[in-house]
C-alpha cells in the first residue's frame, strides 16, 4: 500500500522534471526506432511496421493479461504451453467439424469459441489451485506448463497438427486481413491494450489488483475479496491466451510441440520492461505494450542489419532488456 501511495503522489506531483521511471521504456523504444530507421531504409516501411506489430500481437495480448496477474502479486508460467495446447485443440475440433459443417465461417466461429472456453478453463484451473488450494503460483503454473506441453505433443502424436487446407484459406484473413490497411491482430492487440489500461486505471478491479500485490493482508482487512480478484486475474489471462491463439492459428495453420515455446518468459519480460513490478503492487498496461514492442523491434532490427553475428542475437536482446529496466530504476533504494 505504501509503495502504491508514494508512487501515486510522485506521479501527481506537479512540476516534477523528467521522470525516467515513466519515460524509461518510451526512451528505449524511441532509441530503437531511430536506430532501426538509420540502419535500414525499409525499417519504417508500411510492410515492415505491419509485420512487427502483427507478430507482437500474440505476446502482447497475453502480456496485457499477465500485467494484471503480476500486479496482484502472482505469476503464470503456463501461458506458452497453454497457447500451444489451445491451438492444437482448436485445430482438432475444427478439422473434425469440416465434413459435417463444411469449410466455412461457422466452423471458424466454433473454433474461436472452443479457444475462448478452453482458455477460460485453463485459467480457472490455475486460479483455483493457487487461490483455493493455496499452492505457490510458480509451482502450479510450472506444473500446468509441463502438462499442456505434453498434451499438445500427445494430441499431435509427436508431429504437427495442421488445419484442413480449405479451412485454412477461409481462416487466413483473420491474421492477414484487416480494416483500413491495419491487420486484425494489430486491431485486436490495440483493443485489448486500451481495455486493459481502462480496467487497470479506472475500475475497482484494477485498484484491488494493486492493493493485493502490495499487501494482501491489508487488502483483506479492507474487505477486498482477495481470492476472487486473484482468481479473476488468472481467468482473464486464460481468456486472453485464447484470444491470442485465435490470431495465431490462421498464420501458419498448424500447432506442434514447438508452438509458443518461451512465450511466457517473453510476456513476463515485456511486463517488467514496461515498469510493472515483478513483486506486485504496481502495474502499467501501456508500459507492457511498449515492452512488447521493444522486444519485437530488437529481433527485427537484428534481422535487418548485419553488424552482429546471429550467434550473439540473444546477448544483444539481454543487454537491451537490462538497459531498459536500468533506465527506469528509482533513484533512491527501496526498502
Amino acid at each position: 500500500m505504501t509503495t502504491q501511495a508514494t508512487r501515486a503522489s510522485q506521479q501527481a506531483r506537479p512540476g516534477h522534471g523528467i521522470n525516467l521511471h515513466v519515460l524509461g521504456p518510451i526512451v528505449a523504444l524511441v532509441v530503437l526506432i531511430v536506430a532501426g530507421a538509420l540502419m535500414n531504409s525499409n525499417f519504417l516501411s508500411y510492410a515492415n511496421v505491419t509485420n512487427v506489430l502483427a507478430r507482437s500481437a500474440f505476446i502482447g495480448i497475453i502480456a496485457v493479461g499477465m500485467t494484471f496477474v503480476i500486479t496482484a502479486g502472482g505469476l503464470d508460467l503456463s501461458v506458452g504451453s497453454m497457447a500451444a495446447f489451445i491451438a492444437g485443440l482448436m485445430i482438432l475440433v475444427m478439422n473434425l467439424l469440416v465434413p459435417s459443417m463444411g469449410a466455412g465461417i461457422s466452423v471458424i466461429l466454433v473454433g474461436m469459441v472452443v479457444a475462448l472456453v478452453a482458455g477460460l478453463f485453463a485459467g480457472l484451473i490455475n486460479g483455483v489451485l493457487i487461490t483455493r488450494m493455496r499452492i505457490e503460483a510458480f509451482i502450479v503454473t510450472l506444473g500446468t506448463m509441463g502438462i499442456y506441453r505434453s498434451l499438445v505433443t500427445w494430441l499431435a502424436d509427436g508431429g504437427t497438427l495442421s488445419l484442413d487446407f480449405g479451412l485454412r484459406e477461409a481462416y487466413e484473413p483473420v491474421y492477414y486481413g484487416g480494416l483500413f490497411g491495419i491487420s486484425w491482430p494489430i486491431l485486436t492487440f490495440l483493443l485489448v491494450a486500451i481495455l486493459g489500461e481502462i480496467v487497470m486505471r479506472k475500475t475497482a478491479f484494477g485498484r484491488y489488483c494493486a492493493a493485493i500485490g502490495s499487501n494482501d493482508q491489508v487488502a483483506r482487512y479492507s474487505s477486498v475479496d482477495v481470492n476472487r480478484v486473484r482468481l479473476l486475474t488468472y481467468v482473464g489471462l486464460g481468456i486472453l491466451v485464447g484470444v491470442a491463439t485465435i490470431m495465431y492459428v490462421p498464420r501458419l495453420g498448424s500447432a506442434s510441440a514447438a508452438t509458443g515455446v518461451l512465450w511466457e518468459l517473453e510476456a513476463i519480460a515485456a511486463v517488467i520492461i514496461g515498469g510493472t513490478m515483478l513483486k506486485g503492487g504496481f502495474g502499467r498496461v501501456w508500459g507492457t505494450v511498449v515492452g512488447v514492442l521493444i522486444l519485437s523491434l530488437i529481433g527485427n532490427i537484428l534481422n535487418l542489419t548485419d553488424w552482429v553475428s546471429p550467434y550473439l542475437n540473444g546477448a544483444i536482446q539481454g543487454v537491451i532488456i537490462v538497459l531498459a529496466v536500468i533506465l527506469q530504476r528509482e533513484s533512491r533504494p527501496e526498502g
Partner: protein
Amino acid sequence: MKHFALMTTSALALLAGPLAAQEAEETQVVGVSIPAATHGWAGGMNYFAQEAVERLEETYPQLDFVLATASDPAKQVSDIEDMVATRGIDALVVLPFESEPLTGPVKSVADQGIWVTVVDRGLAEPGIEDLYVAGDNPGFGRVSGEYMVSALPEGGKIVALRGIPTTIDNERVQGFEQAIEGHNIEVLGMEHGNWNRDDAFTVMQDFLSKYPQIDAVWASDDDMAVGVLAAIEAAGRSDVKFVLGGAGMKEMIQRTQQGDAMVPANVTYPPSMIATAIEITALGLVSDAPVSGRFIIGSELVTSENAERYYFPDSPF
C-alpha cells in the same frame, strides 16, 4: 485411437514376452532407447522405431524388444540402466539425447559385453559402439547446394535459414557453402530459424523487407520451409522462384510429388534411420552375418519423379 492401439499392442507384447520365452530356449532381448517425440523429426523417428519393433517381433520370435523414450538425457541414462539391470538386454540401440552425458553410461553397457548400436548422434569418445548408423550432415548440405546450383544455372541471390546452433547445423552449412562456391550464387543473408516454423516465418518476413530481390531460399528444413512459404505468400512477392526445404516431411514431399513450383525438391535426412539400426542389430543377433562398423545413410535428392518413394502417409512427419 492410435495411442490406444499402441498401448494395447505393447501390453500384448508384455504378456506375450514371458510365454515366448518359455517356448524358445534362447530368447534374446534388444533394448531401444530414443528421445521422446518433442519435434516433428523426432516424432517420425518414434513412429519408425515402433513400427520396426512390431515388425521384427513378428519376424523373429526368438527376439524380444524393450522400447523406451526419454524426454531428457538423465531419463535416458536411467532407462538404459533399467534395461540392463531388469531386462538383461543382449543388445542396445541408442539414439543419444546428447553426446556428452550419454557417453559414460553407454560405455559401461559396452564394457559388460552387450552389443551397442549408436544412431545419428555420435558419442563423445570414439570406439565404444559396435555399430554406428547415422545420417550424412555434410552430405545433406552438399546435395542441397548442388541442387541450388543446378536450379539457378545463371547464378542468383539467395537467403538461407539455419537451424539451432549445433555441430549438425554447422556441418550442413559448410557442405552447402562448399557446393555453391564459384557458381555465382550470392548468399544475401543467413539467420537462425531454429528448425521452427514461427521463427522461420519471422526471419523470412524480415529478409523480404531487407532485400528487394531474392531468387531462391534455402530453408534447410521442412518445418522452416512451411514458415518461409507462408511469409512469401503473405508478402505477395513473386521474385522468389522456389524454396528448398529438407528432411522429407510428408506434406512437403506430397507438394513436390504434385509438381508444386515453389517446392520443386527436397533433401532427405530420414527419421527412419532408427529402423535401419534396429534391423541390422537384430540381424546380427539372429544370424552369423557380420554387421559391425559404420553405416552412413546418404542424403538423397527428392524431385517430382521419385517423390513417391519417400512419401509415408502414416508417419506423423
